[in-house]
């Protein structure tokens, strides 16, 4: 035991002499753990909040009954179904204005609420009596309480009308929702005896057993998982995050690998001496592993703290993306579970062991006396290179096969992973080939040495260069995708938001008044009625959108392809355009037919066009607005767009605000809506971009540590050159040139790879994740910029070792001849 402690003390002394190395090792571990665990924290946070939302709103776990033709239906349907043995529970819900903010008011019935939901929400265990008995309670997430600028116990007014029961903060709740008793909700929303939907608890019965008419209404069964299944909708988003987190983790491990490699290299004499002193290989190995695990534990812990910081920093962006894309509400504060900490530490330790495995294996087989044989080693490396090249080709073939066979998001990421891995494996082979070709083209002594030495240097650098290649390629890919996206999105927005002013009246009555009022004005060129309703197709919600037949839409609608007289066919009422998402999901194309369940019977529609509908998680069908109202007579006609000459927009809006007390939610001009949409969509990829930047930074650090490693072990190669008369400055210059040359070759290789990655993201991953495909565009300026950044990173990473070399003591170089192993 004492012996082990002594061995450990000897080994640890190395770090005291090389604090910089210890720092790099820790930086690698910390960066890897922090990025990975940060992403995991975000995912965990989001998933937990989906569970909460689903538990409260009955999306995931329970079926629901709704009235497809009306927003609400009589609560006698609830009593009738209960008395027929159905375990249903009523919910009344609407958006309301509280303290100038729009929130969801959710009225629930806690006594009959299905156990599956009650158990995961705060309500069952809450004081039921206080909740249901006057004055009742308004349960709200603490974040929302803060957003509203209110404190617990306050009784704000709803829509400037009735006073809510006293607010009570409940940390488990989803933000943006106020929960009250159903009786209170009916009073607040002025909907006595009305409910929005019925949650169906566990029952042996199914939709077929439902009576045709309940309380005079035909109810529609909405199966679990089809309405607000946020977890499913957002899976792609989280897979995206996870993929980037994993990439960062791997790049971080590159650093760990090179730092451990360096330490091993430098500790070789010590290890040999220890072995010669009689320390068994087993004991030595065990102590090294213990040392490594201890360092990994420490680095992992610090990394977890870093991960927490990263997650907290990214959370607002992630929350904004999820809200913009899927309407998912994320609480603003991170809350982490113990598993997260354990998983992070485990990742750190396992990652460190994996990164050190090569060194550990070498050490286990360490001959007591071994001479440095760099060139022979490089010869052995050549065989290894061939094998690696073969593996790279195999991975490339795998990528192509997955691309051809796979049909899921996971397959999309599979293609990406195989492609990147193949490229990484191929990199040393390609570099070696390039350097060999360079060597052939020269006869002079120094250039010949230059090329040969570069090749000899490759094995030590290749891991770091791989990291650089991957980080750069992914950066190029993601950058190209985001640029393509924003270019396309702006054009698309121009097409979709063709009207100048958008109005949403509070109800049909007000809408009619507004329309009469508008008709009398000369500065309004056209009023374009719109209406939308929701139906179920194949168990998933689909929006049906009524579009006016007007030049505004005919000229601008973002059709991807359509039949020639598409708009005329739609105008006739028996044809529709469908969104790209819907077309992909249902495998429908122009010429196919679609049937929509309308209150009056099925509505057959011919599909005459497909249009882009970026960012909408639901499928959409665009039909003529009059035809929509004919088939869905109860659809609220509260939305319309106005065509107004630009100079009159401000005047018309001001007059409408004054006349009808419309707020910003109900009345908006095109510019505002566009800005808002762009803001949301810019944030969608903000997280990806941030992770991207982290990855590139980590790759730079990996390069730095590799070069530091090499600079120590390469002195024996440089000392003879110095001895034959080359100045240290020249040597340093040559070294710089060499590193920059390999880095440049790597970066140049990364560009086409990056474009391939971008194509994969756009044509495979995005299509699977979001249901739409962007036109692929290349942005040369962006590529140049990234190339510059990569070279700068390489330069920064090279500078430290080069400066060290330039200032090395001649004595050290002389010692090389004395000390050479």
């Amino acid at each position, binding site marked *: 035991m004492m012996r082990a402690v002594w061995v450990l003390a000897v080994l640890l002394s190395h770090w005291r002499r090389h604090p910089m190395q210890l720092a790099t090792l820790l930086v690698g571990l910390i960066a890897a753990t922090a990025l990975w665990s940060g992403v995991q924290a975000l995912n965990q946070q989001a998933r937990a909040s989906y569970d909460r939302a689903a538990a409260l709103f009955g999306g995931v776990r329970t079926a629901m009954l709704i009235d497809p033709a009306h927003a609400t239906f009589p609560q006698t349907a*609830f*009593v009738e179904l*209960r008395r027929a043995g159905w375990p249903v529970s009523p919910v009344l819900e609407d958006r309301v204005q509280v303290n100038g903010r729009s929130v969801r008011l959710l009225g629930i*019935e806690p006594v009959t609420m299905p156990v599956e939901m009650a158990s995961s929400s705060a309500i069952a265990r809450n*004081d039921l009596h206080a909740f249901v008995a*006057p004055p009742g309670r308004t349960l709200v997430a603490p974040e929302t309480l803060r957003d509203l600028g209110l404190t617990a116990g306050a009784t704000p007014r709803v829509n400037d009308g009735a006073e809510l029961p006293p607010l009570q903060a409940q940390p488990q709740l989803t933000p943006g929702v106020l929960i009250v008793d159903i*009786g209170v909700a*009916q009073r607040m929303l002025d909907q006595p005896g009305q409910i929005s939907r019925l949650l169906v608890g566990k029952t042996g019965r199914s939709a077929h057993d439902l009576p045709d008419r309940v309380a005079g209404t035909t109810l529609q069964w909405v199966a679990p998982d089809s309405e607000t299944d946020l977890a499913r909708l957002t899976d792609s988003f989280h897979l995206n995050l996870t993929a980037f987190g994993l990439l960062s983790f791997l790049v971080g491990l590159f650093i760990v690998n090179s730092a451990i490699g360096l330490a091993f290299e430098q500790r070789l004499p010590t290890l040999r001496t220890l072995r010669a002193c009689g320390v068994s290989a087993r004991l030595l190995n065990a102590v090294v592993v213990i040392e490594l695990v201890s360092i990994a534990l420490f680095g992992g812990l610090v990394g977890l703290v870093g991960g927490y910081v990263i997650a907290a920093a990214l959370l607002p962006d992630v929350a904004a993306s999820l809200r913009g894309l899927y309407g998912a509400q994320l609480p603003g504060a991170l809350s982490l579970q113990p598993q997260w900490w354990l998983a992070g530490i485990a990742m750190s330790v396992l990652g460190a062991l994996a990164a050190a495995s090569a060194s550990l294996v070498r050490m286990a087989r360490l001959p007591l006396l071994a001479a440095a044989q760099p060139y022979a080693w490089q010869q052995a490396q050549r065989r290894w290179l061939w094998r690696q090249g073969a593996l790279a080709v195999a991975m490339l073939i795998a990528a192509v096969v997955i691309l051809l066979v796979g049909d899921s998001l996971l397959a999309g990421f599979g293609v990406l992973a195989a492609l990147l891995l193949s490229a990484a494996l191929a990199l040393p082979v390609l570099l070696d080939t390039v350097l060999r070709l360079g060597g052939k083209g020269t006869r002079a002594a120094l250039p010949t040495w230059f090329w040969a030495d570069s090749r000899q240097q490759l094995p030590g650098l290749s891991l770091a260069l791989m990291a650089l290649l991957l980080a750069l390629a992914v950066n190029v890919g993601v950058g190209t995708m985001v640029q393509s996206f924003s270019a396309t999105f702006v054009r698309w927005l121009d097409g979709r938001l063709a009207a100048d002013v958008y109005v949403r009246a509070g109800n049909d009555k007000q809408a009619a008044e507004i329309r009469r009022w508008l008709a009398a004005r000369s500065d309004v060129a056209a009023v374009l009625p719109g209406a939308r309703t929701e139906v179920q197709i194949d168990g998933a919600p689909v929006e049906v959108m009524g579009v006016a037949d007007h030049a505004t839409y005919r000229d601008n609608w973002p059709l991807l392809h359509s039949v020639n007289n598409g708009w005329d066919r739609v105008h006739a009422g028996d044809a529709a355009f469908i969104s790209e998402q819907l077309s992909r999901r249902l495998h429908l194309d122009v010429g196919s037919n679609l049937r929509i369940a309308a209150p009056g019977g099925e509505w057959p529609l011919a599909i005459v066009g497909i249009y882009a509908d970026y960012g909408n998680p639901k499928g959409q069908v665009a039909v003529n607005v009059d035809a929509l109202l004919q088939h869905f007579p109860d659809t609220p006609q509260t939305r319309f767009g106005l065509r107004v000459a630009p100079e009159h927009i401000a005047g018309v809006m001001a007059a409408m605000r004054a006349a009808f007390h419309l707020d910003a939610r109900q009345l908006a001009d095109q510019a505002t809506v566009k800005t808002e949409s762009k803001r949301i969509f810019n944030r969608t990829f903000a997280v990806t971009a941030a992770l991207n930047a982290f990855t590139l930074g980590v790759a730079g650090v990996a390069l730095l540590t590799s070069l530091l490693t090499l600079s120590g072990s390469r002195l024996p190669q440089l000392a003879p050159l110095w001895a034959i008369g080359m100045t240290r400055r020249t040597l340093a210059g040559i070294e710089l040139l060499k590193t920059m040359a390999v880095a440049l070759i790597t970066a140049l290789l990364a560009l086409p790879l990056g474009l391939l990655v971008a194509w994969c993201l756009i044509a495979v991953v995005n299509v699977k994740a979001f249901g739409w495909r962007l036109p692929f565009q290349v942005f040369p300026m962006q590529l140049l910029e990234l190339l510059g950044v990569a070279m700068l990173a390489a330069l920064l990473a090279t500078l430290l070792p080069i400066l060290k070399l330039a200032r090395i003591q001649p004595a050290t170089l002389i010692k090389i001849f004395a000390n050479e192993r």
Partner: protein
Amino acid sequence: MSADRGISRRAFAAGLMWLGVGGARARAQGFAGLGGEASGFAPVVPGKRFVFPGDFGAHPDFRIEWWYVTANLRDAGGAAYGAQWTLFRQAMAPGPQREGWANQQVWMGHAAVTSASVHRFSETFARGGVGQAGATAAPFEAWIDAWRMVAVPPLSNHAFAPLHLTAAGTDFEYALRLDAERPLVLQGVHGYSRKSERGQASYYYSQPYFTATGSIGLDGKTIAVSGPAWLDREWSSQPLAADQTGWDWFSLHLDGGDKVMLFRLRRKDGGHYFAGNWIGRDGQSIPLPSDAIEMTPLAFTDVAARRVPTQWRITVPARDLAIDCAPLNARSWMATAFAYWEGPIAFHGSHGGVGYLEMTGY
């Protein structure tokens, strides 16, 4: 005396407490005993004249109330079954009944079917005011969700019969017709049932002479059954005793036609309080003195991580009663929000017969 059975139906109050209704207030009153009268609720006073059908229905001015039926059934082949149907009502607050969702009544239903091999149960909750649960006097109907106890016209007001009784869970159902010729039995003194130690009381009447006929549905099979059944109707505003840890309660149909109700209240200090009523063939209900009853557990069953005495020796020397009771199914555990053991039993010894056993607080 028999009013103490009121306490035994604490399952209801406890179940509601789980839901948060009443909460600490009811418990605090339990500790305070007499001093903690539930102010605002109608008091239970001697001398009430029971009026039927009026007293079949709900008494919302009182804090708690229940409709309770247990039936010992047999199929054509002689196999034994048990059925339980319970509707509880509790007012969250006194005062005039508020309309709609604001109504202060909360209802809870328990139903179970027991055979020698299975015990199936279900529970459900409802708020008053919207029609999901309730009890009307004439025409009589007590219901929660699809579970109903309803008069089959013409209803005899003195026998409270015939009634139709239905309940169903996800894995059982039953439909029984309850017939009786004999009049209802008013418990205690003309239905005013005093609790001897604390002066608490309830209004309480029973119909122990029901004959049930109908069918039980179990695992897709419909089984025709018949046998004796027992109904309890009780309402009170009184708080519950705080030092009672649980009780063991028996209703017995003796082969000769006599009916016996017995229970043992277990106190925190380890002491027991015995009480019971002997209801003769003539319909006379005579209280049994506390020291006249002996109840001894003979065997225990481990169920739901608890040790429950499921076999008993019962002796009432003054009545020459000495019987050994065995459960039809020792695992008749009601794993409801407030869990307890309730199931059919059979006994032999000085008398043979069947009955029901309820045990709480284990």
